[in-house]
């Protein structure tokens, strides 16, 4: 089964909008929505991302709960000052649905890739940062996020990604434990990183290494307790993300664990470079080194095992 997180989000919006007067869908000409489906409370402001974020703040301040739609690159970089000052500083209930995150924009190129957004958004006070790992949990986490009183950054993809197999229920703010192991903890964030983590855990299991696999879908606030509990047994954490290695998810884990226990954190992430070639999301992520093989290799090196 595959589903696109942005389409799951869109369907959830279509379901919720008529039933919740607070919700207003603010669009920036993304094409995700068919305006004919919304008689009211859908506004396409045009290609104007600063105004999109500022207007969302004004709308929230006037009592609504705006659902803001743009691409991750434009939400996190182009419109960032409005996100910071108008939304985060006022701690307003704005939900930023950011599609095309990571390299999911694929062949659209580096202008449309967003490999900095977790770094940017997780530094903002009051912001909650959510990265669903598949379609179904996108719907669940989005609905849970509507209960929060402050702003939320929802990091979505462009195209369908596989559903996680046999995943337990997902709860905003709590890392989802997909595997429980004793030797190494793999903490992953995002669709392909979580799949890479599961695949690496299978490979390691065949080698006699038991790995915990955590789907850390909430990057802020980070569920340090669960990560630390799993790390505490092994002391070794490998992080996986579709984001630049600087200041992203792995960096967030490393920062937190460095303050509480002498853990070893090894990051699998996109290199500190733009992605100047065409390709699909999975191709570009793997080209950047975000692979199950890289995860397994990091785990082996931390455990002092020879590569096979």
């Amino acid at each position, binding site marked *: 089964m595959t589903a696109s997180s942005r389409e799951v989000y869109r369907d959830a919006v279509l379901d919720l909008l008529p039933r919740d007067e607070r919700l207003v869908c603010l669009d920036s000409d993304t094409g995700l929505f068919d305006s004919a489906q919304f008689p009211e409370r859908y506004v396409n402001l045009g290609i*104007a991302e600063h*105004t999109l*974020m500022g*207007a969302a703040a*004004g709308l*929230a*301040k006037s009592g609504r709960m705006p659902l803001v739609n743009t691409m991750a690159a434009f939400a996190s970089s182009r419109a960032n000052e409005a996100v910071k000052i108008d939304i985060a500083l006022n701690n307003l209930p704005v939900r930023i649905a950011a599609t095309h995150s990571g390299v999911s924009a694929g062949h659209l190129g580096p202008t449309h890739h967003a490999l900095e957004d977790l770094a940017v958004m997780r530094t903002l006070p009051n912001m909650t940062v959510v990265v669903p790992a598949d379609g179904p949990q996108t719907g669940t986490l989005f609905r849970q996020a509507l209960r929060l009183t402050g702003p939320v950054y929802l990091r979505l993809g462009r195209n369908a990604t596989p559903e996680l197999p046999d995943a337990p229920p997902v709860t905003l703010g709590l890392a989802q434990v997909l595997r429980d192991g004793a030797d190494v903890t793999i903490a992953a964030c995002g669709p392909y990183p979580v799949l890479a983590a599961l695949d690496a855990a299978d490979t390691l299991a065949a080698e006699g290494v038991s790995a915990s696999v955590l789907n850390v879908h909430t990057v802020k606030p980070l569920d340090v307790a669960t990560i630390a509990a799993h790390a505490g047994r092994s002391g070794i954490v490998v992080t996986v993300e579709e984001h630049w290695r600087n200041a992203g998810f792995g960096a967030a884990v490393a920062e937190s664990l460095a303050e509480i226990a002498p853990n070893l954190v090894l990051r699998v992430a996109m290199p500190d470079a733009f992605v100047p070639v065409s390709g699909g999301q999975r191709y570009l992520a793997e080209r950047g080194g975000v692979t199950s093989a890289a995860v397994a290799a990091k785990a082996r090196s931390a455990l002092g095992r020879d590569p096979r």
Partner: protein
Amino acid sequence: MTTTIDAPPAAGTAARIREHVVNLCAGPEGGHLGGSMSLAEILATLYTRVLRVDPLDPARPDRDVLLLSKGHGGLALYAALAEAGFFPPERLGEYARPGSEFMAHPHPEIPGVEMPSGSLGHGLALAVGFGLGFRLDQADRRCFVVMGDGELQEGSVWEAASVAAAQRLDNLVAVVDRNRLQITGATETIDALEPLADRWSAFGWSVRQVDGHSCEELEAALTEPPAPGRPTVVIAHTVKGKGIPFVEDQPRSHYAKLGERQHARALAALRRGAAS
């Protein structure tokens, strides 16, 4: 709600705003003097004659909203809010003290301040959101956004201006404090704004131009009903540093820390101006 029937004359309030601003600029940190002085009549008229706000209930759901997009006019806003009764004027003395919420740029911890400002080019986008919200609520409310003229060099202003017109937000009124100066000189020599009225017209706005130091002209422009389906901009022609002859119309008035003698001279000039 304040009403315009028994409201005090705006000119007297403007004079008191100026005196507060001068006093605050004589404090240990100084302050944004010139652009606060040019705002005195604009804010005085808004708070005494135009805005439907309730100082005893600043978050009242049916209030009009005023956004000071030129956040460096914060001292004038604090003075106007104190004069309007949002907090006692004595609280102005907290300005710039360690731990005080009265910073140079307004923060919503201050009663009557709707949104923080200071980074230029944010107010109009916020106003678009308020305008959309009021319309969805079918509420008889208006959003006023006071901008500096130098601020209009920010691209985000014109992005929001275009969106406001496209959304036909006739519940939105922008006021431009056209004092013609920015930190280092004349707007027209740095990044010219003229023909400013034509620019706004071309963006689909209804344009009104007034003497920004005439409370009567301001009141007329700010209370006249909008053109249906069009946002309104009032270009208020003002003088930076207005009321203090030794800083009037000078870029260096942008930020000032008045010494004892300058403070006394400025107050004397204000009193002479008020008496004349």
